[in-house]
């Protein structure tokens, strides 16, 4: 290595790495075919050097942080760097290799400078359909073969020419081949834009300078992250919780987490978590490792932390082979709920160590429902549905945001009612924030969403709603958030509730469905919440008057525009605190949306 390179050049190169990832992302956004990519931003875009070390990534889905690395590594392991040439592009989606469900497909493009591989552009995006037992997210699967086409690392472009044999195979295995092609082409175009920019940068500065700058960028980032981990008191921190079931039996699926902080190293150990299940609740090891990284990025004291190879050098995750966190063939793995729980449990475990940084229970599922049927006039098959949103966990000094996308999604948008009603024969009666569904606390958890709709003709209906057995927990005396539910009201019949992971349900015309998601956990003792904030919540309808009194101990006048009775409030809070101390249980109010 030569002498230290000057910081001006290093900074210009660092910004250029980010701009390269942003440019790839801009191409993908502009030319992808599916709304799930260009509208919901369900993708990850990353730039690596030839050692598969992350140089930069563009904003997208946080779940994909770190997971893409496994895809690039799998490609390198299979083909070997020495066998790659300019214009080679690869695809891979196998859950056991890359961690995610089969709909998340990775495209990896090798960047070659003067005959030598010098880097990779990698993109993971959600493909609408890769073939599965039923369209959408099939519930009740017991083998990965029921979940779609498994793609090992394969070449889809060789020296800039599409390998049509391979692409034909993808198309034949999808219910939506046209969309698949559109999205795949957009991903390839994006990766090749990255190639143009990255190789241009190497030509401008020279490979040696780029490599030296890369080293310095990693070092500076690593120093910051090591310093942050060092600031966390050493110790072994534990937490556990369960997912509701594996959709095959109703047995809970347990996750156990030990977070070991040792100087500037942080290790997440999932040993003791359940063995892999028959149902679709298992994940590949790369996703488990990704959660340790994501947790650190969440906890790092900046809203926009710098994420590159240097960020996570001293972070790792451990799982037992054959457990839900390192599943083995051929178990199913369609749903990522165990990693959402894992992410959350890492934060919970660390709560005593860094109480100011953590948040109470986060939205723990994407709460999906889908309808499908055939158009009564054209007989065309249609499928419509949505991911619903819940309450974010409160943190020190901050109420959780209401009705927000789950923890491992990011810029993911909901479906407008006007669009939904135009495409799907339902009439939505209401979409509301559920009063009292945010966990009470000195800082309140975010509220859930409650949607009520009616079938305008006979429909097929399926759901996937999680986290009733381990609600989004409160921290430091804060209460848990409300738990999710789906209740169906057939006309003239008695309703059925708890339809959380249902499939094959037929909704007759006129049937009403009420779907509720989870509320965010509260932080701190609700009796210590600023009475003015409680009043504001009552005025806004976020908290009921009953809960204001019984849970928060705030006494309000009966007027339309109530005011706080300060003396009565102090008195009530004292007595509620005393009775809580007697019973050892905080006061509760039932959460009904």
């Amino acid at each position: 290595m030569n002498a230290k390179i000057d910081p001006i050049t290093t900074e210009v190169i660092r910004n250029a790495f980010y701009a390269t990832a942003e440019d790839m992302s801009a191409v993908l956004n502009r030319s992808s075919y599916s709304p799930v990519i260009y509208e919901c931003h369900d993708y990850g875009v990353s730039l690596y050097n030839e050692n598969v070390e992350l140089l930069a990534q563009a904003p997208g889905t946080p779940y994909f942080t770190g997971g893409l690395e496994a895809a690039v590594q799998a490609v390198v392991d299979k083909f070997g760097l020495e066998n790659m040439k300019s214009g080679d592009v690869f695809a891979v989606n196998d859950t056991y290799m890359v961690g995610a469900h089969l709909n998340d497909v990775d495209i990896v493009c090798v960047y070659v400078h003067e005959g030598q591989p010098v880097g990779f552009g990698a993109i993971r995006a959600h493909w609408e359909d890769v073939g599965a037992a039923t369209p959408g997210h099939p519930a009740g699967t017991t083998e990965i073969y029921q979940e779609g086409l498994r793609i090992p690392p394969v070449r889809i472009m060789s020296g800039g020419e599409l390998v049509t044999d391979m692409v034909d195979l993808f198309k034949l295995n999808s219910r939506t081949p046209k969309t698949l092609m559109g999205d795949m082409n957009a991903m390839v175009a994006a990766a090749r834009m990255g190639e143009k920019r990255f190789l241009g940068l190497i030509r401008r500065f020279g490979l040696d300078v780029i490599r030296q700058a890369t080293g310095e960028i990693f070092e500076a980032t690593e120093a910051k992250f090591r310093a942050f981990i060092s600031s966390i008191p050493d110790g072994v921190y534990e937490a556990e919780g369960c997912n509701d079931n594996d959709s095959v039996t109703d047995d809970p699926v347990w996750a156990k987490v030990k977070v070991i902080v040792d100087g500037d190293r942080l290790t997440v150990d999932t040993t003791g978590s359940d063995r892999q299940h028959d149902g679709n609740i298992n994940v590949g090891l790369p996703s488990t490792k990704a959660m340790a990284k994501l947790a650190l990025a969440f906890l790092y004291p900046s809203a926009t932390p710098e994420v590159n190879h240097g960020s996570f050098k001293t972070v790792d995750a451990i799982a037992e082979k054959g457990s839900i966190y390192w599943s083995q063939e051929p178990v199913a793995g369609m749903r990522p709920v165990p990693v959402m729980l894992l992410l959350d449990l890492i934060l919970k475990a660390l709560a005593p160590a860094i109480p100011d940084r953590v948040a109470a229970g986060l939205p723990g599922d994407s709460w999906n429902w889908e309808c499908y049927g055939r158009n009564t006039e054209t007989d065309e098959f249609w499928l419509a549905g949505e991911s619903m949103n819940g309450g974010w966990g409160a943190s020190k000094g901050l109420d959780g945001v209401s009705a927000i996308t789950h923890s491992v999604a990011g810029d993911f948008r909901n479906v407008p009612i006007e669009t939904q009603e135009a495409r799907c024969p339902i009439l939505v009666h209401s979409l509301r924030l559920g009063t009292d569904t945010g966990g009470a606390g000195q800082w309140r958890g975010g509220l859930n969403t409650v949607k009520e709709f009616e079938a305008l003709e006979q429909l097929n209906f399926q759901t996937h709603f999680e986290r009733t057995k381990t609600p989004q927990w409160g921290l430091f005396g804060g209460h848990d958030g409300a738990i999710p539910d789906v209740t169906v009201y057939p006309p003239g019949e008695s309703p059925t509730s708890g339809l959380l992971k249902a499939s094959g349900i037929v909704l007759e015309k006129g049937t009403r469905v009420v779907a509720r998601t989870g509320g965010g956990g509260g932080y701190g003792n609700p009796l210590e919440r600023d009475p003015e904030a409680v009043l504001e919540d009552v005025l806004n309808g976020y908290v009921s008057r009953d809960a204001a009194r019984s849970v928060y101990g705030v006494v309000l006048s009966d007027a339309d525009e109530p005011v706080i009775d300060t003396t009565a409030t102090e008195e009530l809070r004292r007595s509620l605190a005393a009775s809580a101390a007697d019973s050892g249980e905080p006061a509760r109010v039932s959460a009904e949306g």
Partner: protein
Amino acid sequence: MTQQNRLRVGVDIGGTFTDLVAFDDARGGMLIAKTPSVPGEYSAGVINALDEVIDDYGEIELFINGTTAPLNAFLERKGARTALITTRGFGDVYVIRRSNRSRMYDLHYTHAEPLVPRRHTFEVEERLNARGEVVTPLNEADLRKIVGKLRQAKIESVALCFLHSYINPEHERLAAEFLRREAPEIFVSPSYEICREWREYERTSTAVINAYVSPILKNYLGQLETALTGRGYDDKVFLMQSNGGLIDSGESESKALLTLMSGPVGACVGSGVLSRKLDEPNMICIDMGGTSFEVSLVVDGKESVVLETNFEGFPIRAPMVDIHSVGAGGGSIAWSESGALRVGPKSAGAQPGPACYGRGGTEPTVTDANVVLGRIDPDTFLGGRMKLDEEAARTVVGEFARSFEFGIEEMAEGILNVINSKMANAIRTMTISKGIDPREFSLIAFGGAGPMHAMLIAEELEIGRVIVPNVAGQFSAWGMLNADIRHDQSQPINLRLSGLDWEAVNQGYTDMETRLADLLKDEGVAEDQMRFLRYLEMRYISQEYTLSVPVPDDVALGADDAAALKARFDELYLQNYGHSNPQEEAQVANIRVEARGLNALQDQEQPALLADEDAAAPDKTREVVFAGQRRETPFVDRANLQQGEKRAGPMIIVELSCTTVVPPDWEVEVDAMGNLLITKTGGSKS
């Protein structure tokens, strides 16, 4: 137009300065002025600027204004006390938003504070279905109760947004009528009057912003018109709209949303005008101020317009000139982190400002770096109105340089390299997202610091031609003077192309054009200056966003045209997104008419600046650093440059509130309009 009426005046109110450009027909030239803005009483700043150049207000023929009043009220949260009325069951749509988190790693994410708190959201019984048919009629008794609550809460302004009103506005119309009758003191903004597009959150947000700022605009216009009338001007006031066209102020009072970007848009319009005059169809337009760097595009001679913008965390669904803002400016601070160099996005702003402002700034900024390199003459900054403290700049940059073991000038050039490459990256990403190669564009630079960095940014982007327009420091005001009057009107259709009722479509166009012609006539536009551009707004069946497909404005359309229109749509789609899907059916979302009252100035020769010859500073030379070398460099007052003159860099061209840095290997030529055309003559990247 009488003999006396000879002045056409454009005034652009910015956050800091109010700029004026006037075309004086009698003297055949152009006048300029720059005065400090008066926050809270912007009309006073306008009058101050007018007073600098105008003795007799009776001489004003046309008055055009770019106002910042609605924008500032929005940014500072000083808008009207606003409520929202929605369909029963959907009062939470506005606070739920689209449920996304824009910062993926932010564990402590919060949304921008809503303009209407949930407790000022009221629900009324009514419902339409997705076809616009009435499911539940509007319940007037609900509305009556709400009026009482609005009064109790001292509400000044109300936004109305009902589900599916974009396709059938009847319930919104009835409710607005009821409120205007029963509570005439409250401003009412029904969503259909401002936006007829689906997606209820975006439409609600648009109507809410309109309700929030319209009373502010009305108040400002009242003050302005009183002041102008008192001084002898009682004709119309035109406002610059975000879409790049002008609107009569009376017409704009209930649609303040349309004037939100009133100020900066003038410069984009000006760029479009120059693009056509100079026969440079494609331009990247850059404006650099103290805290932000703004980029817009002119493509094929037209300002690039977007139909939806996310502004300060809120969507706005209305056509707006597409302006990207990046956190990089003269005040951007250079700092170090774990031994690495960073520049921006943190800014010293106007207070304390860069160290060289001598207001207590202690951190090195981009402006300080320019001073250290000699590129800014401390004595002539802002026309000499503000003396810069060169020593202070040298001290902060020098200290910073020592921490990196750099020489002071090496450090200063390094700071500029980092910020220039950042701005170039931002431009490149913006062009790529539109499928454009920046190398095929020329760069046009204006605003205080744009021309100081333009050539260096151009080198990064491999652009060889830069234009610094005449009056670059007041270019927005210049642009407004050249703008057309513009109105858009659309009517929802929501039918497959194959199932269109063509007779209704043709009738729709004719009806809209009749209404728009009346509007233009009221604004004083002669019939032969009216233009009506027709569009079909189309999308593929499965998709959400539309593209505007131009259709002939003088022939009736019929089923025979469907195939050609579909092909045109596929082609536009390919251009915009890099792929198309000719097999898939298209849907017509709306028919739209863009009405223009043409601005005759665009076809005329542009007047030259009536400069006070004596006031021009004599030329001098100073040492300026370029690529590590000190070079004796001429500082030339722009007024001293002659038309047709060609000079080689290095050279610094100084004018009121704007400095142009021409590096070595660039050559500057002054065209007949007084624009600087600067071209790369050779050499490698600096």
